[in-house]
């Protein structure tokens, strides 16, 4: 016999779509990060990051994303726009330079033009999403095997000072690009997250009146927004992460990038895996050591596991 279902009753779980947008609360997803100290390595940043990302396919074969901090001009911003029908867009906007990479377009424009261009996009092309903005950050994410995603955007050809990446295994939700990491909620800021947050609904309600805007229902985007809020209020990256230990509830390993900084934080019981390597030339992060095997001089690196609830942060001078 069938149970009668009263569909006028409130659902047992009223968390909206958020339950389905959480990142794999189980054990998977891979994250990687590379922060260069040696300028001579900068032309290889994309190639090294692509190699790290591909090894993490086992942890996340559904989609992949990465942020690269490349060249930037003072007084200019870069907007990374994702969507279809990107050809001719720059001409239509006017006064911007554009680089198309597959489903993404990077617009370079004078900082004073940012509001006008964002306004134009919102009005004329609401189908497009601005997924990253800043002087140097470029951000790409797409559905597919990490190696294929990296190839589509020619990650191996990118140079830069630092970059972070994510491979996703969707266990509770559809495989969509919206659910892919990194998330960027502030200028030149991005975050990748392995884990799940329990109090992201209340955090979202706290942050929205402060002007932190979200484009998805994803819990990881809330973590990114929390850090953006703290940074905007004047906190250093390290301080923002320290504060997050008090305010975020859940499982997390975060790797965070800013214009000049790179940081790592694990929750107090270190639920999610993490391994780091440091040499005179770079600092690298991987969900597993395997991701670091292809880095130059790894056999002589200081390899260590970041401690729970301890902020690790590096900054370019």
């Amino acid at each position, binding site marked *: 016999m069938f149970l009668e279902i009263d569909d006028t009753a409130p659902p047992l779980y009223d968390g909206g779509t958020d339950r389905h947008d959480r990142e794999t609360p189980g054990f998977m997803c891979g994250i990687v990060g590379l922060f260069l100290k040696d300028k001579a390595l900068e032309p290889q940043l994309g190639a090294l990051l692509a190699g790290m990302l591909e090894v993490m396919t086992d942890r996340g074969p559904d989609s992949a994303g990465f942020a690269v901090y490349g060249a930037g001009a003072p007084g200019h911003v870069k907007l990374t726009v994702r969507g279809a029908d990107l050809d001719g867009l720059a001409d239509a906007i006017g006064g911007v330079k554009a680089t198309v990479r597959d489903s993404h377009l990077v617009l370079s424009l004078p900082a004073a033009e940012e509001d006008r261009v964002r306004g134009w996009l919102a009005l004329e092309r609401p189908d497009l999403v601005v997924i990253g903005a800043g002087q140097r950050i470029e951000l790409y994410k797409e559905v597919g095997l990490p190696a294929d995603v990296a190839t589509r955007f020619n990650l191996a050809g990118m140079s830069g000072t630092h970059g972070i990446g994510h491979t996703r295994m969707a266990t509770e939700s559809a495989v969509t690009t919206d659910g892919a990491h990194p998330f960027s909620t502030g200028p030149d800021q991005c975050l990748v997250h392995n884990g799940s947050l329990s109090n992201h609904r209340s955090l979202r309600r706290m942050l929205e009146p402060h002007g932190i805007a979200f484009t998805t229902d994803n819990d990881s985007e809330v973590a990114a927004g929390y850090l953006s809020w703290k940074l905007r209020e004047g906190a250093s990256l390290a301080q923002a992460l320290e504060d997050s230990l008090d305010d975020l509830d859940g499982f997390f390993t975060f790797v965070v990038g800013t214009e000049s900084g790179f940081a790592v934080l694990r929750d107090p019981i270190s639920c999610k*895996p993490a*391994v780091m390597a440091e040499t005179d030339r770079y600092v690298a992060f991987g969900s*597993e*050591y*395997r991701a670091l095997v292809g880095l130059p001089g790894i056999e002589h690196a200081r390899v260590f*596991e970041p401690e729970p609830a301890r902020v690790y942060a590096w900054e370019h001078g």
Partner: protein
Amino acid sequence: MPVIDLARASTRELNARLHALTPDDGETEWVVANPQGRHALAVGLDQPVTVEIKGHAGYYCAGMNAEATVIVDGNVGVGVAENMMSGTVLVKGDASQAAGATAHGGLLVIEGDASARCGISMKGVDIVVKGSIGPMSAFMAQSGNLVVLGDAGDALGDSIYEARIYVRGSVKSLGADCIEKEMRDEHRADLVRLLAAAGLGDVAHADEFRRYGSARQLYTFHVDNAAAY
């Protein structure tokens, strides 16, 4: 001495060759080259052979080991020697989380540090760590010995049963129902034996250690609750 180069062979080929060994095989010394952090290396061995892994290993290295000696010339990932039954596992570098988890017997020696949950639910294994151990180590440890020459992190021995913990350095905090206990002659003798087995007899002296174990105050230890079963 057979060398299996993981730059060319798969993990499955390595383990299949080691599983195929019989007591009559002459090959008792094996070398694994280019491990590159791969998972599940040298798991499920059941013959008294020695396998030396030349580099870092990934998760569950030497899991379920019986009889064999596995030496890792590098670091290991999560769950080294998990559920080991007998034999010896020696890690020359650091170990990630849950080293020796649920292991029933044998000896696990870590020359570097071990991170969180070292010896979680250990069931008879002896674990000797030359460095320090992370938080929540020996959680629900049931029997066996955990010897630490360095320091222990938070919540050591939470909900511990009958395992014995010996720490030479500091203990950041003790977990629920774990207390410091008197060092008697039998414990000193045990420590001397364990340090010697780990090749650390000259590095540390039994008198330098403090012993920790169960206060036996949790639900499980009250005879009144036995009627519930």
